[in-house]
């Protein structure tokens, strides 16, 4: 492909939550900024901008990725999903999202979008994930509100629901 000039904007095309999307970016533009500023998709949050906090996690071709460590020009032709794509329709929550609400697995919500995307990607590949597996996945995210226990409880419950298993009705406020 031709070399993309640093000072110019270049069009990048990809699939975003199932629909075609195009955005104009400089080569140095991070995917976080392309999504938020270029496309107005502000569900993906920006925390540390060096891959440590996990708030910006999305999925690229089905795998979790830090959007802040991804150049927008590198996702040409890829299949991207962000938190905006999780709910089945406006006004309804996805299974994971509903479990998070039941378990009070968020307070300020800044980290939540990233955690949901990580868990969504993981459970698609590994529906029989154990509590330890899910704790390990959540270990890739920083949450300064909840102390993680309700997040783990919500993830475990959502995994069971997605497998079609019955779950206990009472939420765990750990």
């Amino acid at each position: 492909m031709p070399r993309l000039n640093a000072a110019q904007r270049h069009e990048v095309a990809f699939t975003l939550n199932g629909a075609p999307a195009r955005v104009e970016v400089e080569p140095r533009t991070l995917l976080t900024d392309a999504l938020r500023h270029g496309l107005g998709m502000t569900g993906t949050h920006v925390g540390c901008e060096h891959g440590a906090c996990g708030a910006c996690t999305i999925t690229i071709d089905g795998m979790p990725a830090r959007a802040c460590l991804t150049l927008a020009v590198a996702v040409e032709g890829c299949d991207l999903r962000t938190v905006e794509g999780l709910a089945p329709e406006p006004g309804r929550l996805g299974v994971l999202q509903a479990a998070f609400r039941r378990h009070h697995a968020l307070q300020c919500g800044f980290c939540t979008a990233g955690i949901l995307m990580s868990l969504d990607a993981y459970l698609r590949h590994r529906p029989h994930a154990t509590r330890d597996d899910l704790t390990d996945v959540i270990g890739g995210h920083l949450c300064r509100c909840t102390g993680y226990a309700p997040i783990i409880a919500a993830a475990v419950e959502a995994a069971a629901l997605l497998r079609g298993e019955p779950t206990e009705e009472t939420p765990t406020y750990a």
Partner: protein
Amino acid sequence: MKPARFDYLRAASLDEALEALTRHGDEARIVAGGQSLVPMLNMRLTKPALLVDLMRIETLCAPRRENGALVVPAGTRQALLLDRPGLADEVPLLAAALPLVGHVQTRARGTLCGSVAHADPSAEVPLCLVALEGEVHLRSAKRARRVRADDFFVGMMVTDRADDELVEAIALPVRRPGTGYAFAEMARRHGDFAIVACAGVVDGQRMRLAVGGVADRPTARDWPLLDGAALDDALNALAWDLGAGDDLHATARYRRDLVRRLGRRVLEQAAEEARRCQG
């Protein structure tokens, strides 16, 4: 922060990438998974004029077996290798260490060769490569060469790679019969860089301990089979030789203590495994 400006080339072939490196030398940087380089770009610790992206070169994706080694090319992501069936039998040390590399989310993007090229002194993949006496395959437009891992790592984030070369692959020797392998590290949180990481390889004649996180590069020592006080003495001598320093994360004294304790643990574990697979 945001990166400074750079040109971007999504290389369609290895030749195209090598040609760009020949033309631009140290002005150009290779980007693969980006999990080490992009943070440095974001913090403006590095400001290349050109980024050459390797990840669309299909021939660089799949690991292969070659001359008793698992050859992992530049485009192989850590998550892909971790999911390789039989990795724990093939390269047990790597199977033990890879889950400690970053997090699920970074392993999904990061590559093994990228970690080796980045050469952080506390990173797990370079440590495994040194412990296993593996090789780094370097290639420029003019020539290809293979460098022993011990010689490749020169200092803190400094390697033997020339400006016009790229790390085309790493070669990790596969499990030898009658040999045990073990890995252990101490980090503040799971997924953080290790304060100290140790990899042990033990067979019927020899024990090899590689240590990361202390010196400016992963460093290995070979000993005959030691135990008891003789092993204590050897570990203590190594702990002091590595020249541990104080920093934000740990004191020099704590690091030396970790070398002694984790070192003993991995060597004992590897020796036990070696006995098991001999018996």
